[in-house]
């Protein structure tokens, strides 16, 4: 592994956004006007170096595509050492490109979106800080540094969800996000500790290559604990409740943090730690089924939501569920591929939603929109591309990535999972089409006095660029085993499986890699061709699209049907009462336990014991003070009596 120029400059990738954040935090007030520009330039610079690194990596032989470097030693205690070191391999480079690429476009868009906000420089400082944190997360070469990045992105998420401090909802949502993530992070922290116990190091290279030595029990424990962290960050059941509320933040934040990058950290982490997951079939099944349950539940909720950003938020939760399903069946490259395409089309649609809100005085209710394609042609046109991509329209990015996930699930032999995933695909087709039809098509239902207008060029350009990416990115990895994307990423995610080690406990690998770095797919015996599977998957998505078209464009009286909602509609509309159930289970019961502890155990038992002892002493004293009469002669009688008694005793003993 020869270290060469651009890899040595890799520290600049997170370094530039950090510089931007520090500059804007300390000097932002002096340069409100330039804040957006500075932040965007930093991101673009970071992206350029990332791109350079990427091409350098591509030019190297597949087996040598790994570079690690150490900036300085962070903690050193005996044999234990944590260094601030970074890792450049195909997986981290892909993540770097997504974070900085999509990030740059969103920074650019934010210049238009946040114009006129009096805390603009603070906003861009946080946005840059987020990019830095996310890059630390994906570039880290040991668990502890990754954990630092992991917590930093959580902090930035908190700061940015609650950015509009004057909104009570924003404050509550930011706290909800932070606290919910804490729950998962406890699992992640415990998982990291357990890794240290078993491996004696937190270094990725060592942990990943030695994971075969783990027992099935230890692997299951570590994998499930890590997955708890992933479920928190990537909004999976049971910790998904924070993500829809996170939409209280400014829309570019929703696009960058809560759709394209931060929420995929869990997917990245599971992908990165896949050798440990692969040791435990139990953990893999948990990942797959939790992913499925999340994909279905979020899709069902999204069916009836009216808030444009909330539909997209539930869609994000659902798509993340797809990625975890793919991870759970071992289709790592498909999961990472979907992560990338999803980052493009979901960021695009979030920015499109922001553009709609920008043009409609912050209206978010899609039942009050309609027909916007004529007044906002650019927003509508790009949004439609994002929509077709997520639905899986042939040729667009989501078509390839989602089909590959479904093919991976089918290939794992888990037919029930595959059918359920098809249902989720159908639901995705329906709710996304409903969103688009209600927003951009049909007749206008705008409120009086709202005059929609297209957004400025600084917002439209990022939309257009993202639309190109969302449309074209799929071709980078058009087929699972032969697409360029997969050939590039696969060495990072299917490196350590070997036949000799495989047992019943280990999961079935999707591909193996030989000494030359060539990837060999593990062929399934009864696998239909990708074409057949792709057709079925696409049909599911397009069927949803068709049903939505019938309901919202084809004269179905959906507005009238709302007057008499069915039970299922109400359940979906109210998000299956998950928040209420959590409120009861955790907040309610927690408060009850606390109240019992405070008012019964503390006040009655502990305080009670103490005060009863005090009262007993007091009662004894009342008796005792009666002896003290104040009459000297009575004391003299006592003294005399005592002397007499002592005298009698002495005389008696002398006998």
């Amino acid at each position, binding site marked *: 592994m020869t270290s060469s120029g651009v890899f040595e400059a890799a520290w600049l990738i997170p370094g530039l956004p950090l510089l931007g954040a520090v500059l804007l935090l300390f000097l932002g007030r002096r340069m409100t006007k330039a804040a957006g520009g500075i932040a965007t330039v930093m991101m673009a610079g970071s992206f350029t170096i990332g791109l350079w690194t990427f091409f350098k990596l591509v030019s190297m032989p597949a087996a040598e595509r790994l570079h690690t470097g150490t900036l300085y030693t962070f903690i050193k205690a005996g044999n234990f050492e944590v260094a601030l070191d970074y890792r450049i391999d195909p997986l981290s480079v892909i993540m770097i490109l997504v974070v900085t690429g999509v990030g740059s476009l969103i920074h650019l868009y934010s210049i238009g979106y946040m114009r006129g906000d009096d805390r603009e420089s603070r906003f861009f400082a946080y946005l840059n800080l987020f990019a830095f944190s996310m890059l630390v997360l994906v570039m880290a070469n040991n668990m502890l540094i990754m954990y630092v990045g992991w917590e930093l992105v959580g902090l930035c998420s908190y700061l940015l969800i609650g950015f509009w401090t004057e909104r009570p909802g924003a404050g509550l949502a930011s706290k909800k996000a932070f606290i919910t993530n804490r729950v998962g992070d406890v699992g992640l922290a415990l998982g990291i500790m357990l890794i240290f116990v078993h491996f004696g190091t937190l270094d990725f290279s060592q942990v990943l290559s030695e994971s075969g030595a783990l027992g099935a029990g230890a692997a299951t424990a570590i994998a499930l604990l890590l997955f708890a962290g992933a479920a928190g960050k990537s909004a999976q059941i049971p910790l998904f409740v924070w993500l829809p509320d996170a939409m209280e933040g400014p829309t570019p934040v929703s696009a960058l943090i809560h759709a394209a990058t931060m929420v995929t950290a869990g997917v990245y982490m599971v992908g990165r730690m896949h050798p440990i997951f692969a040791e435990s079939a139990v953990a893999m099944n948990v990942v797959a089924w939790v992913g499925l349950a999340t994909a279905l539940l979020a899709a069902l909720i999204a069916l009836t939501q009216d808030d444009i950003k909330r539909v997209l938020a539930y869609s994000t939760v659902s798509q993340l569920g797809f990625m975890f399903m793919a991870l759970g069946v071992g289709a790592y490259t498909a999961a990472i591929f979907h992560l990338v395409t999803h980052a493009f089309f979901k960021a695009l649609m979030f920015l499109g939603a922001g553009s709609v809100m920008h043009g409609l005085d912050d209206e978010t209710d899609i039942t009050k929109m309609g027909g916007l394609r004529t007044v906002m042609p650019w927003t509508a046109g790009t949004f439609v591309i994002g929509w077709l991509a997520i639905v899986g329209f042939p040729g667009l990015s989501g078509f390839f990535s989602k089909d590959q996930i479904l093919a991976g699930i089918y290939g794992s032999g888990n037919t029930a999972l595959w059918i359920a995933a098809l249902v989720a695909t159908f639901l995705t087709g329906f709710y996304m089409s409903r969103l688009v039809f209600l927003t951009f098509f049909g007749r206008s239902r705008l409120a009086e006095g709202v005059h929609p207008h297209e957004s400025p060029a600084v917002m439209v350009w990022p939309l257009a660029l993202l639309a190109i990416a969302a449309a074209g990115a799929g071709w980078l990895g058009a087929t699972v085993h032969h697409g360029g994307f997969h050939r590039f990423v696969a060495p990072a995610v299917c490196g350590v499986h070997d036949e000799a080690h495989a047992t019943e406990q280990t999961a079935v690998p999707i591909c193996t890699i030989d000494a030359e770095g060539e990837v060999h797919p593990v062929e399934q015996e009864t696998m239909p061709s990708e074409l057949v599977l792709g057709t079925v998957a696409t049909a599911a998505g397009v069927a949803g699209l068709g049903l939505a078209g019938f309901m919202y464009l084809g004269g179905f009286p959906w507005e009238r049907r709302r007057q008499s909602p069915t039970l299922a509609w109400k359940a979906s509309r109210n998000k299956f009462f998950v928040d209420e159930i959590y409120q009861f289970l955790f907040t309610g019961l927690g408060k009850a336990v606390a109240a019992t502890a405070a008012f019964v155990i503390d006040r009655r038992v502990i305080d009670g014991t103490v005060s009863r002892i005090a009262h007993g002493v007091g009662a004894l004293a009342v008796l*005792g003070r*009666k002896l003290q009469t*104040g*009459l*000297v*002669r009575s004391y*003299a*009688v006592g003294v*005399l009596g005592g002397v007499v008694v002592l005298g009698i005793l002495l005389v008696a003993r002398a006998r």
Partner: protein
Amino acid sequence: MILPAQYLALAGLLFATGVVGVLARRNAIVVFMSIELMLNAVNLTLVTFARMHGHLDGQVIAFFVMIVAAAEAVVGLALIVSIFRRKRTVSIDDVREMHG
């Protein structure tokens, strides 16, 4: 020849008189004198036993008692005088502020 028992009987009689005086009388001066009586009864027994055993220990202790009694008389009388100045009485039953 006077027997030691007779000295001791006299001492016992003097001591009993002192005890009764302390217990029965309320006048602080009388109580005080009764205490002196008891001390001297004890002195008498000490001197008697000293003679009986041919030692000087008892006589020495008797001197100590006399000296301490003199000091005690100074303090005690001063207290009685100051109590009288404050309360216009020397009855010990009237001085009972310290009761419980």
